[in-house]
């Protein structure tokens, strides 16, 4: 885990340097009249310094804060993240009801290996009940999609 903290610090250093060069493109002003680039440039410099220090801390084995936990089941995480992204891509074209049904059913069936019956039942009831609550009662604007509801 020590290695991961060191790698993270280096990534932050990269972000800091990138942000510094980008903020140099903005007008900096001066200390008595700071302009748009002032604050980001100062922050990028501070971020660079702290990430270097964090790198040193990680190398010296400053292990505080890295909590050893049980291994994560990455397969489930990848599937879930994928379904979240799919939800975002499909939401406006397929519409609220269909996307919600697909999302909930997929999570239950493919990620959690629940039975088809349960997955479909929960998927159907979630999409309809939430549609009534958000769409009809609360008036949340929801995309209708190809079903036009």
């Amino acid at each position: 885990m020590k290695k991961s903290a060191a790698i993270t610090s280096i990534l932050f250093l990269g972000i800091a340097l990138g942000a510094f060069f980008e903020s140099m493109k903005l007008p900096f002003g001066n200390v008595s009249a700071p302009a748009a680039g002032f604050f980001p440039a100062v922050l990028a410099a501070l971020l660079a310094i702290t990430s270097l220090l964090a790198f040193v801390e990680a190398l010296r084995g400053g292990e505080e804060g890295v909590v050893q936990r049980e291994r994560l089941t990455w397969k489930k995480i990848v599937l879930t993240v994928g379904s979240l992204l799919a939800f975002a891509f499909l939401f406006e074209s397929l519409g609220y009801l269909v996307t919600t049904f697909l999302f909930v059913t997929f999570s239950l069936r493919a990620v959690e290996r629940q039975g088809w019956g349960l997955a479909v039942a929960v998927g159907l009831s979630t999409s309809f009940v939430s549609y009534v609550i958000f769409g009809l009662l609360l008036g949340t604007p929801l995309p209708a999609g190809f079903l036009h509801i």
Partner: protein
Amino acid sequence: MSTLANLGLGFSVALEPTNLLFCLIGVLVGTFIGVLPGLGPIAAIALLLPLTFKMAPATAIIMLAGIYYGAMYGGSTTSILVNIPGEAASVVTCLDGYQMARQGRAGPALGIAALGSFIAGTFGLVGLMFFAPVLGAAALRFGPPEYFTLTFLGLTLVSYLSRGSMLKALLMAIFGLLLGTIGMDPISGQERFTYGSLTLGDGLGLVPVAMGLFGIAEVLDNLGKNLRGDVYEREIKGLLPSRKDWKESFWPIVRGSIVGFFIGILPGPSGAMSSFASYAMEKRLSRHREKFGSGAIEGVAGPESANNAATAGAFIPLLSLGFPSNVVMALLVGALLIHGVQPGPLFIKNYPELFWGVVASMYVGNVMLLLLNLPLIGIWVRLLKVPYAILYPLILFFCLIGVYSVNNNIVEIFIMVISGIVGLLLRRVGFDGAPFLLALVLGPLMESSLRQSLLISRGSFAVFFSRPVSAVLMLLSLTFLLTSLVPAFKTKREKLAAEMGG
């Protein structure tokens, strides 16, 4: 006398049927969301925010405030019954509350949590009533240097108290400030780091980032672990604490209320901070210290009171300074601004019916919570018995709809998912999300107050030390920063932070 007259005005607003109804909806939704792990008040407020656009401003704030303190109530229920804190402020309640439940005393634990919260909430409101106008009057003399040092103190505090290395916490805070500069420059209006994205033009949204970092990351982290624990199975009876329970809880509730309230006023993560402070204090003062951790009722009564008093306290900087001390408060500022109401030193004077109406509604809401929650506990227990495998797709779904409904913008769903992944990875290598998020909240205020201060002082940083209020705040922050470097203090801080991190 004028306070009484004002309170009369407040109740006349709070008791209007519409406001009563939305207060009820707010506290119910808040409790519901507080019970569900991984869904906090931010998600609930995001879901209901669009609904408030069409409401009167008082109704909107009454409902949103109800969600916030309702969630505090709900969070304690899950801590006691399943040993899973519904939200950060109720982490300590798990320690003794769950033990009490295992010993068959779930009833008194839930009862004292609700009653203590009620008493503390009421105390906090009285405090709010008296302190907010005073601070509001004082705040009229607050200039940019005071606002800058206030944000500085908030960020120092949250880094000081975050788990693990303070260096990493500071790094996260700076990173949050940096990402907070995305969007329009608050002073010149120039676009920064938007690269042509319309969504980023308004800045990186708080709601998607907060829900990603905490909601989504939490669910992803829990995936595949057996989270359900043991829901307390036996029938819960005897919610009313006995005379002995009362005797043991009385002073913890009083102390918790006072400590919680004053911590609530501070900028920073006041909810969690106050409950930890109260727990530590009760443990220290107790004559039977060894009982803590194995079902001491004081360990439930104190912290639960403290976090409710802190909720009321947190409204003080919001209403009198326009200063949001957490994401929820920042969302409330947003809700007020939509209605053209500017929170700040003139708020109480310009909108008395709004200020006093919201204060009075919190009294009403606290009574509702007390009356509703004791009988509703059975329903919450049943909800907690639903397996996590079925619950979490629903939690994710609430997050998706919540984020989308704020701006009807798909891009914000992507921002949420990305924040969720990044949050999960960072949390596993020991970088805490809390300082990052507070920095994102306070960033714009910090930048504009810093630049205005430097304009006033013609570039001299002495301006932060030459004005009394700002000097005190600055010295406080520097003390926290510097003592974290001294070895003797360093171990103490780490111990404190480790306790806070659970």
